[in-house]
């Protein structure tokens, strides 16, 4: 089970109403390498992975939900006061027609989130390698969004999230090292 802390993992500040940036950011909300995919992928893989790395998947999967919440806050703040006209100009006309200002799990191109974005192969090495790749892809996505964004407040939060992807990738790589270890040898780190 989970306990909920009624605060964001890192503060989210937005300088100005900017629905165009929201359209790009939604990639990290409902995209293939977004935070929802990450959270569901890791938490689901926990059941069929060696005991030693279950806790890691729980911790990181949980943190991904905290990131999801930050992205949601960003998208909401960027669009909440946008007029239908501004939404249309930002390329969010189709989104507005379907959802008004509501958030929805889809990527920057409007494709709805699908479970086919995540895998559970049941092979621990295959699953962890997918997790490492997912973290690097999410890191790259944050880079591309930072490159396009001119909102310094928002970029501050995005840089935090990008750094977390690096740390997560590192921990998954260490998990692979643990599972690779020869079982008849004792190795101390």
């Amino acid at each position, binding site marked *: 089970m989970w306990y909920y802390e009624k605060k964001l993992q*890192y503060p989210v500040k937005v300088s100005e109403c900017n629905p165009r940036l929201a359209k790009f950011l939604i990639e990290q909300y409902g995209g293939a390498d977004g935070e929802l995919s990450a959270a569901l992928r890791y938490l689901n893989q926990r059941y069929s992975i060696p005991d030693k790395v279950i806790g890691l998947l729980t911790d990181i999967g949980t943190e991904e939900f905290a990131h999801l919440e930050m992205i949601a806050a960003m998208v909401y703040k960027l669009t909440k006061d946008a007029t239908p006209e501004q939404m249309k100009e930002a390329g969010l006309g189709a989104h507005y027609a379907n959802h008004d200002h509501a958030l929805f799990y889809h990527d920057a191109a409007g494709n709805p989130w699908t479970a086919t974005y995540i895998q559970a192969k049941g092979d621990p090495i295959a699953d962890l390698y997918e997790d490492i790749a997912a973290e690097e892809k999410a*890191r*790259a996505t*944050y*880079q591309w969004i*930072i*490159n396009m964004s001119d909102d310094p407040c928002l970029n501050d939060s995005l*840089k*935090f*999230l*990008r*750094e*977390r992807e*690096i*740390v997560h*990738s*590192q921990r998954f*790589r*260490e998990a692979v*090292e643990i599972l690779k270890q020869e079982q008849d040898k004792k190795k101390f*780190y």
Partner: protein
Amino acid sequence: MYTPIKWYHPYASTADPCPPIEWKYYQTPPNLYLGFQPTGLPQFPLKEALYKGTLWPVLFDPYPSHVRGEDH
């Protein structure tokens, strides 16, 4: 020396429709090099760590990176 960014010079044809981008860059964050993290590494002060997103200077990778080779 470790650099968080690498670059290459892609082939450009005289028949390319757009002006060529001479150098292409990509990120190589520190997690690619660290291996299993050794114990006892230096840590950021707690408040700074919460701001930076990591407790470990060895894993901190500012973006956009400004460390590039002299000619790039």
